[in-house]
């Protein structure tokens, strides 16, 4: 216990008595942690954006003007039986007309056509929301059944077009995710090399001391211990500094990100705050892990005294 306490004390002493070396090591570790956090953050933004786009998708089905409310309700109930369907909202004929007018507020052509016909030419509709994006295919297939052929005006051809767009986004995000994984690995490799070399130089400046400690009877553990403690301090401080840099940057960029994703339920800052302990924990783990492993590896050669 007393030995452990001494190793901790020496580790803290090492940190302060080599303050400039400590500052440089912490800055380099912070830089690497920041880069890694940024890449992971961009991954999260991509995933959230795609999830928000998928969440926005629904399938609108419009019926002929002669379809009765009862027929619409029957079809609605049939569709609700399908496990992939989450909810179905009804659109009345009047609502349909209002929506059209709202969509084209200054179009005299629409108003003229309605006046010419003398009555509302639009039928009622249903807005289907599936539990998952893939569930829409099943709904479209069900609506293509011949029993609905006479009443359905529009069987969701738009959905097929939208699905192609979403699939393209999905594929692009997928490819981006693979690229991000490689980028992460690349950054991780650079980070490991940078941190390892910084700590190696740090340990090298202590190589004579390590030899002296060994010559006066210190065990390998007693020599390693303080360096492990100092390395943990580097990792911990770097993680805290990364967070202190990341939060203001995220706060400043959040309005731009929000306006970029206007209309979608995306809040990067909110997401960050709700995961802040996980992020900080991971940064501490990566920061401490990298520096401790580097120092243990670098110190080995000087222990052979």
């Amino acid at each position, binding site marked *: 216990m*007393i*030995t452990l306490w*001494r190793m901790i004390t020496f580790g803290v*002493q*090492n940190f302060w*008595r*080599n303050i400039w070396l400590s500052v440089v090591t912490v800055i380099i570790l912070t830089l690497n942690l920041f880069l890694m956090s940024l890449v992971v953050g961009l991954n999260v933004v991509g995933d959230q954006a795609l999830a928000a786009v998928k969440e926005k998708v629904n399938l609108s089905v419009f019926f002929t003007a002669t379809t009765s409310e009862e027929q619409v309700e029957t079809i609605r109930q049939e569709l609700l039986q399908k496990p992939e369907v989450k909810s179905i909202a009804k659109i009345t004929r009047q609502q349909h007309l209002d929506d059209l007018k709202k969509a084209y507020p200054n179009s005299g052509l629409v108003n003229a056509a309605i006046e010419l016909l003398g009555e509302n030419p639009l039928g009622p509709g249903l807005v289907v929301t599936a539990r998952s994006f893939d569930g829409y295919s099943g709904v479209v297939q069900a609506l293509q059944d011949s029993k609905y052929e006479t009443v359905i005006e529009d069987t969701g051809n738009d959905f097929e077009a939208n699905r192609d767009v979403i699939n393209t986004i999905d594929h692009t995000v997928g490819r981006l995710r693979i690229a991000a994984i490689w980028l992460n690995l690349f950054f991780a490799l650079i980070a490991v090399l940078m941190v390892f070399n910084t700590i190696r130089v740090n340990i090298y400046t202590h190589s*004579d*001391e390590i*030899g*002296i*400690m*060994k*010559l*006066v*009877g*210190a*065990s*390998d553990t*007693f020599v390693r211990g303080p360096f492990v403690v100092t390395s943990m301090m580097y990792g911990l401080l770097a993680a805290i500094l990364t967070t202190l840099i990341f939060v203001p940057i995220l706060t400043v960029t959040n309005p731009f990100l929000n306006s970029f994703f206007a209309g979608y339920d995306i809040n990067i800052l909110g997401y960050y705050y709700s995961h802040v302990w996980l992020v900080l924990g991971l940064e501490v783990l990566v920061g401490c892990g990298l520096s401790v492993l580097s120092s243990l590896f670098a110190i080995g050669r000087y222990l052979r*005294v």
Partner: protein
Amino acid sequence: MVTLEHVTKIYQKDSIGLEDVSIEINAGEFISIVGQSGSGKTTLAKLIIAEERPDKGKIIIGGWDITHIKHHEIPDLRRQIGVVFQDFKLLPRKTLYENVAFALQVSGEATSRIATVVPQLLKIVGLEQKMERYPRHVSGGEQQRVVIARALAHRPKLLVADEPTGNLDSINAQEIISLLQKINEFGTTVVLVTHNKDIVNMLKKRVITLDHGHVIADQRAGKYLL
């Protein structure tokens, strides 16, 4: 106390450290190992503290055969032997007090005992007033005295001093030798590795002369031969 039986240490094919050296050092002796540069004096000191391993032969320290000492046993051996180096080997980022205390801390000595023993040791070497200074803030002679204080921390039965006066002027050198003599008078076996002719001749103690890795003379109350 120290027994070397037919010890050979070869660094490279044509670089012989020691060859077939047999020495018996008795408890309480003050022995000088002399010889020119490259004669094997430092190799002998390094073999005693297990900084080097012999290629042949046997080394026994206080009844402990350290010929094939395991890596994890080396700290135990070094805590039983006091070592004084020519280049002091003080920890530069620790104060004089902390340097002496470190030798006790590595073996898990209680903090209260360290707080009592370290000032006493520094008083013995005349540095009790400078214990909070760093090594760079004291002279070479004072640094060497700190090294002696550190070497005495475990009350060793054997003290190996490898060229302890090599970096000192004659006055400081004399002070260090007087200190070593005093330590020897209290019963500690002292092995002094040196090439300082005046010191060896003044001591009038046992002298082992090495040349090219061989023992060429072993005198009971000897003089510097080369």
